[in-house]
């Protein structure tokens, strides 16, 4: 009896399991059949109307402390949590600095003493009003903390040693900043729009100080600002959740809750936005966007805005043939810029050949170079290389497009006899070698840190600054002089003229062939409105208060 009982015990779970296996196999087969027949997609499961769900790869997030954050994605989130003295806005297609916590400001005749008048009525979520003392505390903290982005403030003269004197609250409403020399006003203001200068609640910060860390451990995943949103939680590699701040001085934003879900794989983001599980797909590939557009779907749309960066080919003049201006000129004439834009970037880029991108003060729209093989060959012959030469071109892995761009350049240059060998490297080691002037040619990009032409002139034109021009061993006295002069020119007309001169010089003499200005693109569900306005500045300033959802 007992035996028989045990026997049936043995039998039935196993047979059930076998049945289970068969059933699972059937399910897979049915599923596969469904895919094959391409049946209709089930109706989208919409997210709540007051909630915006974003799919993004958040692996790059390190900290949300405004004084330390330096990654684009992190800066976008921090932008929602804090107010700063001044902010950026897009006015008639131009990037401009506009008031935020500072209602107005004055620059004294000495050219170095700035006074900012703090707006009345702004409060932290605790109810405490924001005063000049809070701003003083925040900027001093950022300078003393001295993290990655601190060099932005260092270069206009704020250092941990002098910050007690140079950053001072005169009273509740007036904050005085003394910069190290009379810079162009826009340069100082645009540096102040970086997340670094976000205003933190002094009391919250002081309540969480641990030995010498200025509460950076706490602010890494908590917010202490007066911005439109507050940070509810951040689970690394999982989720970031923001909630509307009821005491925000412009009034609570229409979207009450922002949820950023970690989706490292673009294909997963694509499936999720098509199904309506997320409202915004942050990082699809250009090809995916093109496919979605081609499907003519009405429930999705693509939002594109100019990015704040430049993609370029650089030529190290330490390498014999590339030291000849005519060789570099020949290379610029040989490149098929249109093929790069159309075939690789699928039209998602802005043509650009000078180093100040569109939308920036001082932008020079000149685009003299087009593919002209005859002319390129002739220039090469004049430089003494009728049969070309061999050169190594390095670019990094991890970019969807750079390797392809490098290949186009390789075949373009082959047409004039220059034999290009492409080497792919990881970004880290590549930049290490590049920093030592150790590469011959490189396809890379430059992300702008603050929207002033000086942020581009220094790296691209001034060989005395250890940046891009220096990395390619290019030094031109005139370019260095013009960069320094434009940096401190307070008359904007004269400044404009200086940048015109400088961009022309680098365009023809410099070590670069500038390829294009990238475009930032998001795929959003059609009921998400105002995303264009929110993203107008690319990722320099992201204004989630502009976003709302239709029924």
């Amino acid at each position, binding site marked *: 009896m007992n035996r028989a009982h045990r026997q049936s015990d043995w039998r039935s779970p196993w047979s059930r*399991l076998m049945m289970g296996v068969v059933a699972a196999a059937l399910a897979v087969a049915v599923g596969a059949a469904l895919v094959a027949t391409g049946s209709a997609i089930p109706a989208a499961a919409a997210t709540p109307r007051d909630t915006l769900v974003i799919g993004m790869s958040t692996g790059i997030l390190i900290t949300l402390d405004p004084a330390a954050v330096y990654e684009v994605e992190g800066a976008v989130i921090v932008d929602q949590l804090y107010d700063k003295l001044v902010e950026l806005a897009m006015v008639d297609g131009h990037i401009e600095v506009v008031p935020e916590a500072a209602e107005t400001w004055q620059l004294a005749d000495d050219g170095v003493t700035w006074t900012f008048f703090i707006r009345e009525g702004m409060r932290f979520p605790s109810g405490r009003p924001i005063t000049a003392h809070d701003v003083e505390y925040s900027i001093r903290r950022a300078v003393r903390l001295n993290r990655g982005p601190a060099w932005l403030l260092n270069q206009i003269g704020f250092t941990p040693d002098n910050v007690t004197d140079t950053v001072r609250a005169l009273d509740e409403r007036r904050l005085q900043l003394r910069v190290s020399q009379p810079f162009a006003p826009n340069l100082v203001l645009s540096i102040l729009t970086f997340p670094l200068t976000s205003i933190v609640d002094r009391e919250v910060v002081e309540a969480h100080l641990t030995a010498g860390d200025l509460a950076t451990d706490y602010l890494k995943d908590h917010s202490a600002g007066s911005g439109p949103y507050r940070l509810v939680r951040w689970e*690394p*590699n999982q989720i970031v959740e923001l909630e509307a701040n009821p005491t925000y001085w412009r009034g609570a934003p229409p979207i009450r809750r922002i949820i950023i*879900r970690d989706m*490292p*794989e673009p294909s997963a983001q694509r499936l999720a936005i098509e199904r309506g599980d997320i409202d915004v797909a942050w990082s699809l590939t250009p090809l995916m966007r093109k496919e979605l557009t081609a499907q003519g779907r009405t429930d999705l749309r693509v939002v594109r805005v100019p990015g704040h960066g430049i993609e370029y080919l650089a030529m190290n003049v330490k390498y014999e043939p590339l030291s000849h201006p005519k060789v570099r000129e020949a290379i610029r004439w040989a490149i098929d810029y249109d093929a790069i834009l159309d075939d690789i970037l699928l039209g998602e880029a802005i043509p650009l050949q000078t180093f100040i991108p569109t939308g920036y003060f001082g932008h020079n729209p000149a685009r003299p170079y087009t593919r002209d093989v005859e002319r390129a060959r002739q220039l090469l012959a004049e430089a003494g290389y009728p049969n070309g030469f061999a050169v190594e071109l390095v670019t990094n892995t991890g970019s969807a497009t750079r390797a392809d761009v490098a290949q186009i350049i390789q075949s373009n240059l082959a047409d004039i006899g220059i034999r290009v060998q492409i080497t792919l490297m990881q970004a880290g080691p590549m*930049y290490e070698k590049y920093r030592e002037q150790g590469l011959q040619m490189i396809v890379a990009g430059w992300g702008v840190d603050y929207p002033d032409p000086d942020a581009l002139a220094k790296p691209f034109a001034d060989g005395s600054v250890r940046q891009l021009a220096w990395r390619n061993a290019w030094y031109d006295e005139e370019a260095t002089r013009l960069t320094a002069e434009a940096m401190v020119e307070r008359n904007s007309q004269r400044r404009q003229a200086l940048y015109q001169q400088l961009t022309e010089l680098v365009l023809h003499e410099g070590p670069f062939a500038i390829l294009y200005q990238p475009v930032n693109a998001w795929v959003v569900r059609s009921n998400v409105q105002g995303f264009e306005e929110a993203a107008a500045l690319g990722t320099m300033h992201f204004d989630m208060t502009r976003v709302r959802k239709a029924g």
Partner: protein
Amino acid sequence: MAQFVARRLVLMAIVLFGVLVITFVVSHVIPADPVGAILGGNAPPEKVAELRRQLNLDKPLPQQFVTYLAGAVRGDLGRSLRTGRPVTEDIGRFFPATLELALAATLVALAVGIPLGVVSAVGRNRLPDHVARVLSIVGVSMPVFWLGLVLLLVFYFRLGWLPGSGRLDLFTIEPPRVTGLLLVDSLLAREWEALRSALSHLVLPAVVLGFSATANVARTSRSSMLEVLFQDFVRTARAKGVPERAVVLRHALRNALIPTVTLVGLIFGSLLEGAVLTETIFSWPGLGRYITTGYLALDYPAVMGGTLYIAVVYSLVNLVVDILYAVIDPRVRV
């Protein structure tokens, strides 16, 4: 027995030391600059030099290794270069998700693989065997990435039966963290909604991860089953008139499962490693993802710590399996 365990423990320590040396050497010899990677392409050289000094990366390699080793022995795996958090804290945060996934995948592999092996052994060289063999080959050769995307496409995108990413629904409240295993935690807290949500999120990644191991299990259980089926006691049982089903399941299978026990340890270990891709496809916040993102940022302490930790778990599991095996089969102890 005690001697056997002691010997195994010494071996394990040697293996772990080897892992530590190799990860250290590999991550310090490849020509890469973690500081440059952290600061990005725009950083001025002074900042790079300064951070390098702060992180002790300017010290000679042997000295760095001794420091690291001394820390590791005390259970201090250093701080992540990227986040500044202690690596052990990060592991504590991310490992439970990987553990849950690997356990579930092992279950899938056993639940599908063993019956498959049995069926094909019993129906040797007939249709069931061929079907099982094809499935095994498919299992071994199908890339995890592809399978993951196909299953997502079918069960998430087309049918909408299962969720596509993460460990819980967006608006499901996470149960209080006790073990970090969501299934266990939600059971403890009696939060049925969380349990349902966690289960449904676990299905696809566990199937994808367990799929290739299934083939392995099926092959092993098939061959050991075949071996047992020809032994005398099975013949005796048949001769005594025991029904075929009972012969197979009760007499043969029990004995044939012994090699599979060892396999479980190996499978579990390989699933811990294999979790990297699965975790990326399904946005699963586990240790595999932590190590990948660490690697991409050249965050050596994170990569070394994560790898070492997985090696420890892997060795421990194997140790337990070996001990179990020795208990079952005394011949092994010699």
